[in-house]
């Protein structure tokens, strides 16, 4: 997906999941790259989790900590603001993405920064910060290897943790040769990393402003934390004289001690590591060490709306580990771009429509991008019941269509059919009548014991699957005839399968 294509957060209309998925499913290189990558990560994660005897208690602790924090979010946010200020930092509040971008661009301009270096941050992808800065004449350089790859390719991320998961190393080699002007390059990962390193070092040393997201921020101390694997984040947060962090308001944790839980849950769930390689903490500013100016921008952008939904609010527990993506049979096959959002996969399917609001046809299709198999819930380190939220959001989507969609919503063929069926099921007499009618009605379709083609939208089924015709006798007809002949219990030969 190119950077210019609209996504759920850029405003404008986005395609439905099923349309975008059809395209991705046909891309054999993507299927191979993703299938291999997700399978590797999920197997490694299973091993890393298996060795923890108290994993279930940790998950419960993570869930409980997050939901307590969200219950008192207002208090913790004010406490965080106070702590950051005390430590010499500045705090800004942004109602939406536009406001956040304006604040960040203003800070960069006040330092005459024409270039900024960035740590991997999905919050800044959500607000479309890079595009905004560009319009303001400021160039943003992504320094995370995968983010750099997709920035050079002019694409968008397709995975929360591994943004370039859709690309294999030979594709990356070609890209680097074209865009970085490297002449002699193999597709060996150390060689590729080295090419990126040479390119990035210069940017790190030149930039006046570093921009990061945040994995956590401690209300009690004002300490912000970034968890990463490459060390580029450490460079961005320590080398430039000014540091700006954009953080969704749900990333807060109450106390320093709470890291004990999340630093066990996050690395094992996301990269299958026992301990995270680069974990950077900073508390305000320290004289003569690191950035001398620190700004924390707190982003709402729909989050308080999510908090208002009793079932949906657990979505804000998410610590962006991406374990749900790696186990999802839908994500594994369609990839992240099919979701048309910076948040793909199962978590994206519940987060995106809630953040942008129900009633936008593109993102309204996301809760349906699941077979409800439950693999995501099983691995979620903070126990977000994703299938439950998916079902709840499907309900909200349908109720919105029925209640606000006017005549068009009411006359929608699916709505008409579903309501008629519900009516039929509500009365045994109607239900039995419908069983008989369907048995008679299917005759033009049933050929030699199978239905090969169904009409209308149902043709989706018979595209690749035969359908079994309705047999001569329903179960209840058999039950009635059996009881009529006086045999109520006891084994009967000749019946059954």
């Amino acid at each position, binding site marked *: 997906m190119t950077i210019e294509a609209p996504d759920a957060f850029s405003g404008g209309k986005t395609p439905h*999941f*099923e349309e975008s*998925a059809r395209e991705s*499913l046909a891309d054999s290189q993507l299927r191979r790259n993703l299938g291999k990558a997700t399978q590797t990560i999920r197997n490694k994660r299973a091993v890393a989790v298996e060795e923890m005897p108290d994993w279930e208690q940790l998950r419960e602790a993570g869930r409980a900590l997050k939901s307590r924090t969200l219950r008192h979010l207002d208090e913790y946010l004010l406490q965080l603001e106070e702590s950051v200020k005390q430590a010499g930092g500045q705090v800004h509040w942004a109602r939406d993405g536009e406001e956040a971008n304006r604040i960040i661009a203003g800070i960069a301009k006040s330092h005459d920064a024409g270039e900024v270096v960035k740590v991997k941050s999905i919050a800044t992808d959500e607000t479309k910060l890079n595009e905004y800065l560009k319009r303001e004449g400021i160039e943003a350089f992504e320094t995370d290897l995968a983010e750099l790859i997709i920035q050079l390719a002019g694409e968008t991320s397709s995975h929360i943790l591994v943004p370039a998961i859709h690309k294999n190393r030979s594709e990356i080699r070609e890209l680097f040769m074209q865009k970085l002007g490297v002449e002699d390059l193999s597709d060996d990962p150390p060689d590729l990393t080295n090419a990126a390193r040479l390119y990035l070092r210069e940017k790190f040393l030149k930039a006046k402003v570093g921009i990061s997201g945040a994995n956590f921020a401690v209300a009690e101390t004002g300490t912000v934390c970034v968890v990463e694997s490459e060390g580029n984040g450490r460079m961005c947060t320590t080398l430039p004289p000014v540091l700006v962090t954009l953080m969704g308001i749900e990333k807060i944790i109450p106390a320093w001690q709470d890291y004990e839980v999340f630093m066990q849950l996050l690395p094992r769930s996301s990269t299958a590591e026992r301990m995270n390689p680069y974990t950077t903490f900073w508390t305000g500013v320290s004289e003569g060490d690191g950035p001398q100016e620190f700004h924390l921008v707190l982003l709402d952008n729909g989050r308080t709306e999510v908090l208002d939904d009793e079932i949906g609010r657990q979505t804000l527990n998410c610590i962006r580990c991406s374990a749900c993506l790696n186990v999802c*049979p*839908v994500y594994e096959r369609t990839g992240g771009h099919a979701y048309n959002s910076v948040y793909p996969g199962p978590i994206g399917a519940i987060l995106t429509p809630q953040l942008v609001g129900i009633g936008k046809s593109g993102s309204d299709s996301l*809760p*349906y*991008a*699941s*077979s*409800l*198999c*439950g*693999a995501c*819930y099983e691995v979620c380190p903070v126990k977000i019941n994703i299938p439950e939220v998916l*079902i*709840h959001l*499907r*309900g909200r989507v*349908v*109720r919105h269509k029925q209640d606000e969609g006017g005549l068009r919503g009411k006359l929608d063929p699916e*709505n008409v059919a*579903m*309501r008629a*069926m*519900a009516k039929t*099921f*509500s*009365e*045994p007499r109607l*239900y039995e009548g419908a*069983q008989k009618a*369907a048995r008679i009605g299917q005759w033009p379709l049933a050929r030699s014991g*199978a239905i090969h083609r169904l009409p209308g*939208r*149902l043709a*989706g*089924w018979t595209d*690749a*699957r*035969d*359908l*079994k015709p*309705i*047999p001569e006798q*329903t*179960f*209840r*007809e*058999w*039950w*009635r005839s059996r009881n009529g002949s006086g045999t109520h*219990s*006891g*084994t009967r*030969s000749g*019946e*059954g*399968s």
Partner: protein
Amino acid sequence: MRIALFITCFNDTLFPETGRATVEVLERLGVEVDFPLEQTCCGQMHFNTGYQREAIPLVRRFVEVFKNYEAVVAPSGSCVGMVRELYPMAADLANDKRLAADVEELSPRVFELSEFLVKKLGVTDVGAYYPHRVTYHPTCHSLRMLKVGDAPLKLLEAVRGIDFVELPEARECCGFGGTFAVKNADTSIAMLGDKLRHVLETEAEVCAAGDNSCLMHIGGGLKRQRAGVRTVHLAEILATTEEKIKP
């Protein structure tokens, strides 16, 4: 013990043989089976597709029909999953405290067939004989919603004459997902393709499961490919005995 059979609308209409087999197995074990004819549909399809207000009358009907039974047994993991895991959400949506209380009281007594046999009755050998090469797809809702664990496999292990072969990547979804199979047909078929590949790898002649909805999906794909593998509900395997095979 007297139980109510919750046949599910899907089995009632499309797979009556599974219902007959369920009755047969239960009666063979000395369980008295009642079939309340007032039952229709549990509302799962409506609820999971988002037509939740429409599903509420079906939830009420289910609770009314079954609430006075000691146990309710169904040959379907996903319909039991609807009752046990999602009826509380439906009662909340209906804003009906009485319904919520009835649901809370009834739902622990609603069982999927294999868990009823193994966990409630404590039986694994039901006296079945099935001389075929069989593989088993555990189905997502039985596995992850109901957590039936290895109950179906214990039942299959005790079947005489069976040549059981494990399904590779068994825990992965087959891609059915109710209306997902039609709404997101392309993704559903891509998932099915991998499931079929694994079924064929086993060289089994029968792919079994505890849910006919998944089996209709897997079986529909196998049939379209003329794969030479049939799908059979677990209940039908358990209902087959040596006496029935003899002329």
